[in-house]
């Protein structure tokens, strides 16, 4: 992965407040990135598969997935991604407000690459996104496309 090429991130999140927060947090980071947003599970799958309006969009390097979304929730999206031969190599980070043990266990059972809880204050949120950015996009070696 070239340093200059921006990283493609897909954020699957229905709450515009959270979308904005994530965008802000990523802006504060040092890494060049393109943040794409899908507002529900169906859109997320369409984006990943390059269907419909998303025929021209790039394949994301990383998916940030909220669990509670309309139409198709994050749990189903995660299962579909990890069952697909084509998509399962894309790292999926579950980013949610749920601290429920069951959600954590289910997510890892469906091969989520990480599970993060959204902190309640903005500074904490920036920290989490920053750590995430640093680890997944700079430290970790991801599979080539």
């Amino acid at each position: 992965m070239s340093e200059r090429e921006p990283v493609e991130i897909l954020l699957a999140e229905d709450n515009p407040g959270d979308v904005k927060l994530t965008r802000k947090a990523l802006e504060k980071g040092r890494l060049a990135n393109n943040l794409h947003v899908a507002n529900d599970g169906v859109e997320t799958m369409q984006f990943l598969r390059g269907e419909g309006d998303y025929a021209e969009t790039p394949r994301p390097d990383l998916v940030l997935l909220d669990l509670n979304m309309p139409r198709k929730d994050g749990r189903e999206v995660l299962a579909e991604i990890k069952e697909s031969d084509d998509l399962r190599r894309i790292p999926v980070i579950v980013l949610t407000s749920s601290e429920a043990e069951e959600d954590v266990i289910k997510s890892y059972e469906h091969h989520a690459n990480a599970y993060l809880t959204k902190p309640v204050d903005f500074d904490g949120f920036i920290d989490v996104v920053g750590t995430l950015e640093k680890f997944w996009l700079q430290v970790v070696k991801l599979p080539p496309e």
Partner: protein
Amino acid sequence: MPPNRRTSLVVLSGIGAILAGVLLFDVYEDWQVQGTTLTSTVVENALPFVLLLGTFYLIRRLYRGAYDDAFVGTVTMWTAAGALTIGGLVAWVVGIQVLQNEIKPVIIVLQTAVVGTAAGLLVGQRTASVQQEQERTRREKERFRALFENDPSGIASLRRHGDRLVVESANPSFASLFGSTEGKALEAALPQLAAEAVAAFREHTTERERFTTETTLRTEDGTKHFVIELVPFGAEEVAEPQSYVIFQDVTEIRETKAELERTVEQLERSNEQLQQFAYVASHDLQEPLRMVSSYVDLLASEYEDELDDEADEYIEFAVDGAQRMQAMIDDLLQYSRVHTQGEDFAETDPTAVLERVLRDLELLIEEQSATVTHGDLPAVVADENQLGQLFQNLLSNAIEHAGDADDPPTVHVDGEERTDTVVFSVTDDGPGIPEDQQERMFELFEQSSRDDEGTGIGLAVCRRIVDRHEGDIWIESAAGEGTTFHIALPTRAPQQSTSSGRIE
């Protein structure tokens, strides 16, 4: 009657009989040998007669009260009668021989007395036993009758007569339930009774087997539910076997039971809803709260230069409010998890649990320069994590509130084994809690005067944990004399609480 008392009775009766024999022989001798007239003989011997009768009267008096009246009466009477009649008769018959053969009269007197006493005693005792038996039977009958007549259950005795069961007799309860039934065939007496039940009664009466059934029947007092018990009785191998049927009215018990079941069900449902509510509230409340606090933060950081001091203060209040709400929600979640996320109960070593908790509290203990000691802590059956939570909440509570700058807190944990329970105590040397505040402290979000930092949920969680363990928690404290929290936990496993509706 004990044997020694019986013997003394016999001896006394025997003495009486000997006296009777002597007397009779004397009378006979006077009359027959010396030739006095009968009247003068009787008159001459009247005093000894009266004495003799007096002796028997005394014997009766002596034994009455202590023993069965009828028995004593019968024995003395028959012994006396035997002695008098048989003894007299023998004395009379043998007396003639005495006069002819010159046998010593004293021997004859003794002989007759002994024979008379023995005979009297034999007859007397036998009669007494028969009387006693009759009396016993009569009393038993009376007892049974009283039971039968007064039993609140409807009881009827049945006799198999050919192919039918006939109601021989019924008690008043039975009559008040089903009207006049005596002498009728069972199916005619109780037409509302199912044919299968009648058949079963007949079958079991014949087979001499007990039989129980439940049924709802129309009665004179309305429809009632009965537990019916059939109890065969009487000798085996008879042409017409007999049995009792006992109709126990369980309508009220059943209604109460149904009511109770309904209440329990409602309670379980509302409890489940409550747990779900607490969980959902704490979960779904997080989302908007996060928005509030995050955006207030963002506002503060992005418009830092454009806002004045007052605006900063507003923001501070908003952030503080959001943070406190967050803390409360976390507590609520913890509170709701006591039941939904409880582990199974197991034999637990409280010392190990306490030591773990003390390690977790190390920072706080150091901060407050607190001294924490503990005695022997007997094992309990508990959810280990929750026992730890109990210790942690009570200890941090004590450490935070017991000390001040000059006087660092001292806390002692102890355990005492009682019947089926262990009572743990956490004692501090703090300012104490006034009695009127003690009970309130266990309520949800109740902030005591000594609590200015927490959200007031620690003790509510403690109570909920203790409740789950079917234990007890209470405060012993007086103003200025420190505080002791007691926790009683069972040493045997309580009924596992159902964690139905487990949502996490």
